[in-house]
């Protein structure tokens, strides 16, 4: 209550002014205000994108995952050849595996890799490029693939190296 600083004849009017009721805006007023506050909208947008991303992954990852450019058969084969050549050369230089063995192993590896590459393209035709893109986009799958290849190559060369040593001993 404010102290009187007016004439007595204004007292009843002042009393009525103090009794004036508050007026209410629409029930959704607060929601509309909140929708206009930038700071609150930014996290919501991120959350919405995150939820959308999660939902899209469930739908097959066609839109949520940034699609990688599919690797072509020639490119895959080229990389396989280069990789196998380097490994074969290193094996020959350091482990004294003869060229024929190295070439055969390279050819086998090359052949297997080419089949994998062709299989990818066939899979793309059967399953759809989006499914293959989704598979290729998965980093985990890629890591597993590379580890499998590395382990396979190391194991293969180990076996070949052992066989060569045994053959050398027998020849000697």
């Amino acid at each position: 209550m404010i102290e009187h600083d007016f004439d007595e004849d204004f007292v009843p009017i002042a009393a009525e002014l103090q009794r004036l009721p508050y007026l209410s805006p629409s029930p959704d007023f607060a929601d509309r205000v909140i929708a206009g506050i930038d700071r609150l909208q930014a996290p919501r947008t991120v959350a919405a994108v995150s939820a959308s991303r999660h939902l899209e992954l469930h739908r097959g990852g066609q839109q949520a995952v940034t699609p990688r450019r599919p690797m072509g058969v020639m490119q895959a084969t080229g990389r396989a050849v280069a990789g196998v050549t380097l490994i074969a050369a290193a094996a020959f230089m350091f482990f004294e595996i003869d060229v024929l063995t190295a070439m055969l192993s390279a050819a086998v590896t090359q052949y297997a890799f080419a089949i994998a590459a062709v299989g990818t393209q066939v899979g793309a035709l059967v399953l759809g490029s989006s499914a293959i893109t989704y598979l290729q986009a998965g980093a985990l799958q890629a890591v597993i693939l590379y580890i499998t290849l590395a382990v396979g190559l190391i194991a293969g060369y180990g076996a070949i190296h052992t066989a060569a040593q045994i053959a050398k001993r027998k020849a000697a």
Partner: protein
Amino acid sequence: MPARSYTDVSDQQVVVFAQEGREDAYRELIKRYERPVFSLIYRMVRDKETAEDLAQETFIKVLNNIDRYRPEFKFSSWLFKIANNITIDHLRRRQVDTISIEGSPDAITAERARATAVTVTSGGESPLEELESRELGAEIEKAIAKLRPEYRACIILRHVEDYSYDEIAEIVKLPLGTVKTYIHRARQELRQYLGDLR
């Protein structure tokens, strides 16, 4: 972040929570002041939709700049200051000046008048008291509506919101002497308009 109770929490403390980005703190500030701010603006513009738009603009402006709030001032004073600025700017642009609490003067149909009329919150009185209060309140509302907008803001802040002259001067950005003059003249005019009430 779980919603917390803000009972017995001061405005300044709620503002701190709002500055941390808590939505429930923003909602609490809106809940505390939506009716006073909307009432002030409505009594100045006399149109529900316009008052809602201006009140919304006020809250959005204040809450988007909540980091600029200085705790040495009352939050409500800052809020009313922004509300008054926005409303005065609007009135200067549109020269809205009407007297009907039953709806906008622009309402040319009964439906439009109902749509622009405001909801008056009951104070828990008996039906007769409520009717009398409503009649007296309506007379006061009409009398306030006849005042100049600058007078309206000052008289409402003084007699409805109980602000001191200094606080009103800060809110309406006018010299203290001008505020006192406005309130004195507003009282005189209200006396004239409400002669039968005394």
